[in-house]
């Protein structure tokens, strides 16, 4: 190369290409995404975090939990199961209708002991023929979409996480390392406020052999006054404070736990369906928000 212009031109072309690809295009494709509707309930999703939980996100960032915890669930595929709820009034014609679509199901057991799953198919579209055939003769079926994969088997989520789940987060912390479990759905998995507080104060007291560091900085050790504080942690064994003392969560601890309990990305979406939809948020979610 003879001149510096060539060098700068080379650098400019290469860098502007990746800038366009990984900065500009995602911004155009995803940067203005707004709330979507869940299926089939048509609720708005997601809702922005408010109050304590929003402050807790800052505590989470500030303590660098992201270096050990991811917040994203992967899935390797989906399992679409067809449940036969009711064979209708004329069971044998239902069986005939089923057999037309799926000859291998042409056996009496198919329509006994209902409701039960009768077939697994590749995707929702593939279930259409069967659904049509059965409903035409008065039977009732339900089609369930069950995402599969190791994250899901571990109970880290009901479905994979998608861009939609994060639209209101700043800072988005999907994480790249799992020295600890994924937390994308920890709010529905471990919804107990006290469990979370105790775990932050002394992880080993809640999870045997835990290697998570304790966050005693988020708690205050106080001499018990005339009456013990109502919100003091109930601790036993090694982690219990000496007699006459109590461990009280600071505001930061409460915010952080409110945030953890708000972590939930399992709403069924068109791009990432899951049926039947997961149960509604447990009552403890609201307790944390005070």
């Amino acid at each position, binding site marked *: 190369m*003879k001149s510096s212009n060539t060098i700068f031109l080379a650098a400019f072309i290469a860098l502007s290409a990746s800038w366009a690809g990984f*900065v500009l295009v995602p911004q155009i494709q995803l*940067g203005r995404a707004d709330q979507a509707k869940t299926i089939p309930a048509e609720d708005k999703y997601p809702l922005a975090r408010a109050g304590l939980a929003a402050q807790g996100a800052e505590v989470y960032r500030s303590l*660098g939990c992201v*270096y050990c915890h991811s917040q994203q669930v992967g899935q390797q595929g989906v399992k679409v199961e067809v449940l036969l709820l009711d064979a209708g009034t004329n069971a044998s014609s239902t069986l005939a209708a089923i057999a037309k679509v799926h000859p291998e199901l042409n056996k009496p057991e198919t329509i006994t002991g209902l409701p039960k799953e009768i077939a697994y198919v590749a995707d929702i579209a593939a279930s259409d023929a069967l659904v049509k055939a059965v409903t035409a003769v008065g039977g009732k079926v339900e089609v369930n979409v069950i995402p599969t994969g190791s994250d899901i*088997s*571990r109970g880290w989520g009901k479905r994979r996480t998608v861009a939609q789940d994060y639209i209101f987060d700043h800072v988005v912390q999907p994480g790249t390392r799992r020295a600890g479990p994924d937390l994308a759905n920890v709010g529905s998995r471990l919804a107990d406020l006290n469990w979370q507080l105790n775990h932050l104060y002394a992880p080993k007291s809640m999870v045997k052999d835990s290697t998570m*560091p304790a966050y005693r900085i988020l708690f205050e050790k106080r001499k018990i006054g005339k009456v013990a504080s109502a919100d003091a942690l109930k601790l036993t064994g090694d982690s219990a404070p000496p007699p006459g003392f109590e461990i009280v969560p600071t505001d930061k601890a409460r915010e952080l736990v409110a945030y953890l309990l708000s972590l939930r990305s399992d709403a069924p979406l068109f791009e990432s369906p899951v049926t039947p939809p997961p149960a509604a948020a447990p009552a403890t979610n609201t307790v944390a928000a005070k």
Partner: protein
Amino acid sequence: MTATSPTTPSKIDSSCRLPLFTLFSGAAVWLVLSSVFGLAASMTFHKPDMFADCAMFSYGRAYPAWSHLLVYGFAIPSGLGVGLWLLARLGRVEVAKPLLIAVGAKLWHLGVMVGFVAIVNGQTSGYEWFELPRYAAMILFLSFMLMAIWVFVTYSRRTETALYPSQWFTLASLFWFPWIFSTATLLLQIFPVRGVVQSSVAWWFAGNLLNVWLTLSGLAATFYLLPKLTNRPLQSHYLALFVFWTVLIFGTWTGIPMHSPLPAWMSTLSSAAAVMMIVPMLALASIVFLTTIGAKTACGGGSLCFSKFGVLSFNLATLAAAIAACPAVARVTDFTWFTHGHTTLRLYGFFAMTMFAAIYHILPRVTGVEICPRRTKSHFWLALIGTLLLAVPMMIGGIKQGLKLADVSAPFLDSTKATMLGFRIGTLGEVLIAIGALIFLANVLLSILSHYRAIAKIAIADATAIQTAEVKL
């Protein structure tokens, strides 16, 4: 050298003195501090509750403090200093405005300090490899521009017009950093983009910083040092040009991990780019082979040793990253310590080693005082063994961790237990790296000090000579 050339290598070297002293001494201090935090972070895995009452050293702060100090504190200033010297020497030109570059360097170090204090106090931005908060990022950007402008002016005043590969690499690195860094600062911190677009920007930035910037800056030094130290011509400029192009074209797309909430085409593209990085890696390997084969120079624990190990680490780290980008492997290695393993190999094994090589080559020329070879040799062995003990067990531990994570019948904590041996050895590696960093700091500071001592001696000698002359009068 052309006959009319007004300058000499020693004049050029002394014009570099002030900026290089500032850049290198600061870099060495940050390197030591970074290894302290690296050590603190790795202690978490032996005694999780060690820093339960001390937020500053807790894992979530010690780790970003480590990476911040290593990349912004050590890597970038040393890369800039080496680049400046290369441009001056190869262009046969004295540095333009050394004082302003030194001021820029001071400002840079100030920005690093501000960022560091912010991180350990919990003002972390939350983006990996870009942890510093907005105000620190702005200081760094301004000071980089201040330095880069005068480095570029130096280059444009060159008297030697033929361009050497090291110059291409350095110039491209000067261009690269402001672009990626301003994009990250603007779109993550000043006018933050929405949702996962943040992740996309942050990963694009990190990929360009680690896989392109460090490569450009490091290879600029490699392509100068290897031929120089073995006393043979670079084999060949065409291959070097090929490395240059392929690093730019492929490297810039790396960074987005296989598993992410981003659209699948992005991670697919990024993984393909990581695999394609094998191409420049092979070209680099052949350059090094063709250039150094048959050379009779023993490396003796000096610059040549550092530089060769740097190339070896580059190749291993690039290969590991390429393998981990294949979907079947990524299913196991994503989210594990494997990534950390090959990233540290890149940072410590390739970049830092190459910078040590260059700095040990440059400093004696700038100060006029040799560095004690025994001390560079002990630094070499500590750094080499430390890096290997850190990176290799982390990669192996990462694979074991990934296999346990994929096996859903194994409880989660089995995956952490699987990495314990890796951490035991890795922490030992961190200790060696930290001791090596201390020796490096001593080498740099003693070298600078002995330069001033020599000047002082001459000044005193002159003064006494004048006095005696006056007495005689």
